[in-house]
């Protein structure tokens, strides 16, 4: 898959994890939710590892899987329009 599709996959899993995290905040004893949370979390880490290897870090302050300060600075920023926005 291309960069855009890869990012979309990350966004889908990431979003599910956010919703699940909120559920677990108020239902910490839910076994089903805890299991799914762990499974999705591994999936997200795998997706991000693959993405960062190709396109550069997705988080700052040294927390990414691959450090690349030049890519951190110069890769597109999230608010920029993918089609024909200013760079």
């Amino acid at each position, binding site marked *: 898959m291309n960069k855009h599709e890869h990012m979309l996959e990350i966004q*889908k899993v990431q*979003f*599910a994890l956010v*919703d699940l995290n909120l559920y677990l905040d108020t239902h910490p004893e839910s076994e089903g939710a805890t299991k799914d949370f762990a499974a999705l979390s591994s999936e997200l880490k795998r997706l991000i590892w693959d993405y960062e290897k190709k396109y550069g870090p997705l988080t700052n302050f040294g927390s990414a899987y691959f450090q690349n300060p030049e890519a951190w600075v110069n890769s597109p920023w999230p608010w920029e329009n993918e089609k024909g926005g200013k760079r």
Partner: protein
Amino acid sequence: MLRGKDQKKEYKDDFKDIKEELEDLMDEFKDKKNYKDDKMGSCKSYKGSCSQGKKSSCLEDCLENPAKYSCNVFCKDTDENCYESYKLFNPPIYAKAHIQPQPYKNFFNLDDAIISGTIFKDLYDPYCNSGYVGGRRSYDE
């Protein structure tokens, strides 16, 4: 896109059932002065899963159908109580808000989740069954 239309019909049917049960419940309440003691009678005559000791399925049941009579009966013998709705009555503190706790079930797949805004189908636009359409309330539905 998503299964909004099917869900709406389901919700309408469920809403009618719950509405009828609630009306029964309301009638019972009206006749009781001291509901704590009077309900002992209804506890004895109640033959639901709680009085048969199946507490775990009872909990599931009440999370799914919170308006069921058995989920709102208060018994002095707390083993007779379904779910923990007796907490609503003992101690009888008023001026409390109530939000139905949400069971872990009925999920969207990942593709639909990010479009709809949640992974839980039960939380997807829950106001539809009351006919609440963007600022208007339509009681006719």
